[in-house]
């Protein structure tokens, strides 16, 4: 059924590099994936895998000295027209109507992503005024409504408070309210619960799911937490050092992982339902610094199934390894 739905966002062969004096860092090195309407795509990976830069590339907010070198990011707009975000100028009118309009963004750090000198209300109202043709009074009412819809108690009062007056959970809710104030069709959530406690995390994940059901919005959930992905995602993209190493349906990824990195990652996490004090299987070594990127498959120095003479020379392409799933590994011809 999903095959006849057009993707809402289609990322093709995205390459984003940072050009520094010490050398070029390929933060995203040829990533391709689709986000479908009403579905949640989980992007998993450890630090330095390029998951956040991918999100920044989509919104065209990559900081200098980084820039998109190659690839396409095709967004299907509400009227059915397609637009390649890579071709837009980073400060053009079109991209600004996409940011916050078509695509909403929630960051990891709710403390630093709000302005401390403006009230929460001012920041929501600003977004509403930018993207809709409404007056200030109406915008304020919408702001209050947005705060109410994310479960903030007494929104009429909270709207005039500053972000530091809110607790971590409420601040993240307010962040979501800003992102949702213009009814985006895609919400990019970059580590939305990483800074929160587990019970607050459960509240925020529940809220995201509820909002998704109500509005049929697509979510691109970026996280390093495999538990969060397992609970939330329909499809999963696993990244390592700027590359997509595996993608597929959530159940396939967790129950029948193909790529050695995905396998090792799943085995190495302590789980709440595992036996205490057993030795965990580990992945040897650590993530290489992006300057010292290994040749060939980026994972080969840490891989137990690496084929000498092949994995350290050639880069495996991302190819189909079954229905609706892909992996980039020479083990799968």
């Amino acid at each position, binding site marked *: 059924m999903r095959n006849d739905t057009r993707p809402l966002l289609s990322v093709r062969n995205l390459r984003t590099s940072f050009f520094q004096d010490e050398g070029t860092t390929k933060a995203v090195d040829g990533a391709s994936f689709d986000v479908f309407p009403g579905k949640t795509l989980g992007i998993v990976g*450890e*630090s330095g895998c390029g998951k956040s830069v991918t999100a920044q590339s989509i919104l065209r907010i990559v900081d200098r000295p980084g820039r998109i070198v190659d690839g396409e990011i095709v967004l299907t707009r509400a009227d059915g027209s397609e637009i390649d975000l890579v071709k837009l100028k980073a400060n053009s009118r079109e991209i600004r109507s996409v940011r916050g309009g078509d695509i909403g963004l929630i960051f990891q750090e709710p403390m630093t992503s709000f302005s401390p000198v403006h009230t929460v209300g001012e920041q929501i109202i600003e977004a509403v005024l930018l993207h809709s043709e409404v007056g200030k009074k109406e915008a304020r009412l919408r702001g209050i409504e947005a705060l109410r819809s994310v479960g903030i108690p007494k929104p009429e009062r909270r709207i005039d408070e500053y972000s530091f007056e809110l*607790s*971590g*959970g*409420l601040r993240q809710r307010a962040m979501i309210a800003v992102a949702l104030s213009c009814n985006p069709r895609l919400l990019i959530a970059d580590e939305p619960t990483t800074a929160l*406690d*587990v*019970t*607050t*995390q*459960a*509240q925020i*994940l*529940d809220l995201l799911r509820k909002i998704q059901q109500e509005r049929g919005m697509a979510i691109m959930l970026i996280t*390093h*937490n*495999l*538990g*969060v*992905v*397992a*609970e939330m*995602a329909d499809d999963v993209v696993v990244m390592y050092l700027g590359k997509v190493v595996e993608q597929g349906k*959530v*159940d396939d990824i*967790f*129950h029948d992982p193909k790529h050695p990195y995905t396998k*090792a*990652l*799943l085995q*190495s*996490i*302590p*789980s*709440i*339902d*595992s036996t*205490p*004090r*057993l*030795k*965990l*299987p*580990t*992945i040897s070594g*650590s*993530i290489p610094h992006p300057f010292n990127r290994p040749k060939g498959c980026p994972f080969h120095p840490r891989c137990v199934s690496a084929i000498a003479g092949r994995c350290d020379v050639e880069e495996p392409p991302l190819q189909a390894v079954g229905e609706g799933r892909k992996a980039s590994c020479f083990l799968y011809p």
Partner: protein
Amino acid sequence: MTNGDAGTGKSVLLDVRGLKKYFPIRRGILQKTIGHVKAVDDVTFFLNRGETLSLVGESGCGKTTTSRCILRAITPTAGQVLLSDNGEVVDVATVPKNRLRSLRRQMQMIFQDPFSSLNPRMTLLDIVGEPLLVHGVGNDQERTDRVVELLNLVGLRPEYMRRYPHAFSGGQRQRIGIARALALNPRLVVADEPVSALDVSVQAQILNLLLELQERLGLTYLFVAHDLSVVKHISERVAVMYVGRIVETAPTEELFASPRHPYTEALMSAVPKPDPRLRSERIVLEGEVADPANTPSGCHFHPRCRYAQAVCRETAPAQEEIAPNHFVSCHRAAELSLRGVARSGA
């Protein structure tokens, strides 16, 4: 309540009784004290030699303050921290400052953030050797030899000892921190969130190393963490804290299989399981963690507890031993049947 000699047959290394730490809130020009943040509010637990006890709870619950009081990094407001030191029991909370230094050889700490806890201007040799220098152990050569031994112990190459911390990855830096903590052959190691700043693929390496070192050196760990999966993996017993109090202490398997405190139940159900087939009905707690400066009456958890009754609002529940070695502070512990974590594959 005294549970220091609870019938386990093992000898108790650390016995914490009625520990309290209140921080004053001062206001106005005269800095008058207008209230207290009750960061740790009557905490009692014990730690057997060679075992791992985890203190688990959400941010602000007082787990770090408790561990700092135990090391006397801060002086507790009230209570006893009894450490057995060569057959003699010493109260770390009140011991005179001049005895503290020798006591601290027994108790060392592993910190959370391997990036900010190592001095960037010191080499590995200086960092790991510093505790030896401070305590006047050996001469230069002996200290260097000991550093080599320690680096080998934690799986770092001794050739690297003239390098600076920036040359190492997060996991390697955490190994440096562990080597430093072990330099003086401590008996008690307090590890405050030792893996939470690390990447998942590196966490397992450090957890395995901690387990291995415990076996080899007979260490006793007090493990402070918020991640229940990590806690389950490393500990023999777990103490769950909520707003300055321990609500439940039990052997690990028992706590996870059959929690007896509603907060423990909710906390465990909130952890996302890394298996999409287990998308369970989660217990989502209403509201927020109580403010330790303005704690609720009675049981601190009652405003968020779905089983709360009138008595919970009025009186704080006492800690009871509901099963051997299973302590819980809940008025309704005996009658409630709470949900634990199912074993995978079961």
